């Protein structure tokens, strides 16, 4: 009985967790790998690593969200 009562709460919590943490991890991914790329660009005097890093961060954060919340 108690397991049945707790079930919707757990679902709601997981859902809200995902809704609120995915955007901030996407942002964090872009910030970290975009930032690394930007630093590489400055160091090597290039301009390719910043966009590459941004997209890479986005993909990694998307993968993280997929592994954490898809079940």
């Amino acid at each position, binding site marked *: 009985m108690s397991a049945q009562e707790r079930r919707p709460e757990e679902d709601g919590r997981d859902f809200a967790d995902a809704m609120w943490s995915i955007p901030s991890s996407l942002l964090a991914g872009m910030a970290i790998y975009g930032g690394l790329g930007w630093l590489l660009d400055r160091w090597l005097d290039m301009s390719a690593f910043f966009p590459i890093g941004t997209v890479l961060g986005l993909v990694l*954060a998307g993968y993280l969200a997929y592994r954490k919340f898809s079940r």
Partner: protein
Amino acid sequence: MITLTAPAHGDEFSAPTPDELFNLPPIIAGVDWFTKPVLLAILSAILVIGVCWGAFSKPKLVPRGLQNVVEYGYMFVRDQVARPFLGKDSDRFMGLLVTMFFLVLVWNLMGVVPFIQFPVASHIAFPAVLAISVYVLKIYLGVKYQGAGGYFKNMMFPPGLPKPIYLLLSPIEFLSNMIIAPFTHMVRLFANMFAGHMLLAFFSMVGFWFLFEKLTPLGAGVGVLGVVMTIIFTGFEIFIQFLQAFLFAMLASMYIGGSLHAEH
């Protein structure tokens, strides 16, 4: 106190600037920190304390009057904000969450109360204090219930991923939880209130300017449109203000819940 009729420059309509709307002079000359938002924040605190005191100082088993209303709000916070995230720990944090919800709600509603019309949270310092308090509490509770190492390990290393990938993903988790989460927590409330106040001020300025300052046959229609939009957006603002107070308390409850139990 400055009303929404900030002076437009010259003969042409000019939209109110953020500087006119938010950079208010001190109420008492010479006391620089005592501005309108500070006064409103103090009044809101007194109001929330007073209402809760009036409702719960002599609680009755069968609530009536003020107690009935505030109890309804309490139950809303308990069922919608606390229980989904805190479960059986809800009651321990209800004091904090109810206070936060009501305080932020009153702060926000100050934005549409006639003649007051200033949402306190549109100065970022106010939501920042609340968000930083929640942030400190979150880390304290996490370290207390999961251990210093355990808390950061649970945060940065979600189980079930191949080992090498942690090297890439842990920095994302750390940045997302430690910096972006508290930042968005305060900016979400601040930006909503800031933008809402700008919109309301703009539309009421349009109405005031074209109907009272420079009434012309062609401009009158624009002025009426401004007044209508002001009314529509005031209704919309009330909804947003409630929603943002709810979200602020909900996120606080979510962060606390995440610190009490490790995810999954």
